[in-house]
C-alpha cells in the first residue's frame, strides 16, 4: 500500500535553526494520527467532544436514569393518576416552572399526558442519536461503495451511476421524504406490531436515500485522480482483483475525506430527523425531540420550559456536532497550519 501515509510530518513543526531535529520526530506518522493529535489540542473540539460524550451517555443510560428516579416516558403501570398531576386545563400540577422544583420531575411534566419531561428528553435524545448514527453509517457505506465503483469503472457504468446520483440530487429532499415516508410505512407496517419498526426503518431509509449522494460524488472525484497513480497501476499489472484494488488499495487513501464527511453528516441527520418529526412525519409511537417540539409550540407562554428543553437540546447537540465536524475537517486538511 502506499505513499500518502508515510512522508507527512507534523505540520507547524518548526525546528530552531541550527539545532538538529530530534531523531524520534522522523518516525513516520499516519495522517490520521496527525489529525488526532491536532484535535486533542483544539479547545473547541475538546469542549464539543465532552458535551457530546455526556449527551451520548445520557442517551445510552436513558432507561437506567429513568428507572432510578421513577420517571416514565410512556403511559403504563406505576404512574400516578393523571388527576394528581394535571390541572383541568391540562397544565401540570407539580414540578417547575409553575410549581416548586421537585426531584420527582426535575424538568416538569408534559401537559395533557402527564409524562415526565426529563424522561421524554432522554428517550428523545436516544431516538435522535440512534437514527442519526444508523443513517450516517449506512449512507457512508453506500456512498463510499458507490463512489469507489463509479470512479474506478469508466465509460457506461460510470455514466449510469453518475446519472443515478444526479437524478436523486434533483429530487426536492423534504417533499420527497415526506411523500415517501407514509407510503413505505403503510406498505410494510400493516399491523400495529410491525408499525413501530416499519416507521423506524422508513425514517432511516428515507434519510439514507437522500443522504448518500454527496459523499459518493466526493469519493468518485478522489478515485478519478487516485486510479492513475503508480501504486494502483502496479497492483493492476500484477493482477490484483478489482475488488481488492478498490477496498485494499484505494479505500485506505480515502480515510480523511470519509471521516470528514461522517463528522459533517451526523449533525445533518440529527437536524433532518428532528425536522421531519417536527413536520409530523416520523415515529408515531415513541418519543422524539422533534415530536415534542411540535407538541410544545403552543405552550410557549403558558409553559415555556416544556418547549425550551427539547429546543435547547437539539440546538446544543447540532451545534456541538457541527463545530466538532469543522474541527475534524481542519485537522484533516493538510493546508491548514497552526
Amino acid at each position, binding site marked *: 500500500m502506499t505513499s500518502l501515509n508515510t512522508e507527512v510530518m507534523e505540520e507547524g513543526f518548526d525546528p530552531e535553526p541550527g539545532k538538529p531535529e530530534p531523531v524520534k520526530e522522523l518516525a513516520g506518522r499516519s495522517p490520521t494520527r496527525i489529525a488526532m493529535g491536532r484535535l486533542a489540542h483544539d479547545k473547541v473540539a475538546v469542549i464539543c467532544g465532552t458535551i457530546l460524550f455526556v449527551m451520548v451517555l445520557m442517551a445510552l443510560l436513558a432507561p437506567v436514569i429513568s428507572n432510578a428516579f421513577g420517571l416514565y416516558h410512556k403511559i403504563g403501570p406505576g404512574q400516578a393518576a393523571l388527576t394528581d398531576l394535571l390541572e383541568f386545563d391540562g397544565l401540570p400540577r407539580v414540578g417547575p416552572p409553575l410549581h416548586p422544583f421537585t426531584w420527582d420531575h426535575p424538568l416538569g411534566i408534559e401537559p395533557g399526558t402527564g409524562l415526565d419531561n426529563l424522561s421524554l428528553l432522554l428517550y428523545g435524545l436516544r431516538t435522535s442519536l440512534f437514527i442519526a448514527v444508523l443513517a450516517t453509517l449506512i449512507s457512508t457505506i453506500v456512498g463510499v461503495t458507490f463512489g469507489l465503483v463509479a470512479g474506478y469503472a469508466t465509460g457506461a457504468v460510470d455514466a449510469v451511476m453518475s446519472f443515478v446520483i444526479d437524478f436523486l440530487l434533483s429530487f426536492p429532499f423534504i*417533499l420527497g421524504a415526506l*411523500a415517501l415516508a407514509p407510503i413505505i410505512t403503510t406498505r410494510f407496517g400493516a399491523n400495529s406490531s410491525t408499525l413501530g419498526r416499519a416507521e423506524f426503518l422508513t425514517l432511516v431509509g428515507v434519510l439514507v436515500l437522500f443522504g448518500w449522494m454527496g459523499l459518493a460524488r466526493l469519493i468518485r472525484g478522489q478515485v478519478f485522480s487516485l486510479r492513475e497513480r503508480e501504486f494502483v497501476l502496479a497492483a493492476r499489472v500484477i493482477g490484483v482483483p478489482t475488488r481488492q484494488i478498490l477496498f485494499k488499495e484505494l479505500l485506505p487513501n480515502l480515510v480523511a475525506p470519509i471521516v470528514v464527511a461522517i463528522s459533517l453528516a451526523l449533525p445533518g441527520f440529527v437536524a433532518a430527523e428532528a425536522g421531519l418529526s417536527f413536520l409530523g412525519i416520523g415515529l408515531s409511537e415513541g418519543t422524539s425531540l422533534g415530536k415534542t417540539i411540535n407538541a410544545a409550540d403552543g405552550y410557549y407562554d403558558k409553559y415555556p420550559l416544556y418547549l425550551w428543553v427539547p*429546543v435547547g437540546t437539539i440546538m446544543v447537540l447540532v451545534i456541538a456536532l457541527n463545530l466538532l465536524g469543522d474541527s475534524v475537517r481542519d485537522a484533516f486538511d493538510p493546508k491548514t497550519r497552526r
Partner: protein
Amino acid sequence: MLGFIVRRLLSSLLVIGLASFVVFAIFYLGPSNPAQPICEGAGGRCTPERLEAIEKQMGLDKPVVSAYGEFMGGIVKGREIDFGASQYDCDAPCFGISFGTRTPVTDELKERIVPTVLIAVGGSIVFLVVGVSIGIAAAARRGSAGDRLLVSGSLLVSSVPYYLVCLLAWIFLTLQTSLFPDTGYFPITEDPLKTFGGLLLPCLVLGVATSPSYARYTRGQMVETLGDDYIRTATAKGLPRRTVLFRHALRAAIVPIVTIFGLDFGALLAGTIFTETIFSIDGIGRWGLQALQAPLDLPVLTATVLVGALFIVLSNLIVDVVYGFLDPRVRLG
C-alpha cells in the same frame, strides 16, 4: 458550447422524465386507494362492486405505464377526467383533479406558486445583500477582530437548525412582542401592503439564516482574488480602494457565488416547506404537506414533487450554461 448545451438539455430532459415517472408510479402503486373515501363519502353503503366501479371510472384500474401516459398527455394537451359523479374538463397543462378540493390542480398550483416565489425572491435579496456585503467587508479587513468574529459567528449561526430559527422568530417576534405583523399570504392583487407585511418576517428569517454561508463563501472567494497579481497592479497604479474592491475583485469573485445562488434559488422554489409551515403561508411546500393528511391527495403530491424537481433541474441547467458565459475559462467545446 452549443454541443455542451444540447447535451445538458438532453440529460436534464431525461432526469425530468424519469423523475416524473418514478413519482407517478410510487403514488399510483402506493397503498392508499383514492377511490375508497369517494365511495364511502357518496352516501349509501360502499360495496366492493361500487368501489370497483368508481376505480374504473377514475381510471385507477389501468396498468401504471398507460396511466402515466395519460397523465403526461394531460400535461401536454389537457384531458377530460371523470371523478365521482361529475366530469371535469381539465385544460393543458393538466395535473389532474385534487381529491381534496375537487378543483383542477393546475388552478391551485398557479395560486400557490405566487407566495413561494415571493418568499424565494425576498429571502434571496436579503441573503445576497447581507451575506455578500458582510463577506466583502470581512475580506477587505482580513485578520481583524471583526473578520474573526464573522468567521466563528457564521459557523455558529449556520449550525442552528433552520426550523428552530423560524419557530423562535415566529414565537418571539410576532406572537409575544408583535414587532412584526401577522405572517401569512394575503393576495397581492388585493392589498400589496398587507402582502408585504405578511411576508416580511419570513423573508427576513430565511435571508438572515442563509446569509452566514454566503458571507463565508464570499469572504473565501474575495480573499483568494485579492491575492492575485492584477489586484496588486490595480492598487499600485493608484486606483481608489473601493474601485479595486468592487470593480476588479468582486467581478472575478462573484462568478462562483452566482452559481451557488442559482442552485439555492432552485431549491427554494421547490418549496420552502419549514418557512411556509411555521409562518402559515399557503405556498407549494405547505400544500404538499397538507396533501399528506389522510386521505392522501395524490394529484397534489405528484404535482408538488414534480414541480419541485423541475425547478431544481432547470436551475442546474441554467447555472451550467450561464457559468460558461460568465467565466470564459470554462467554455466547454
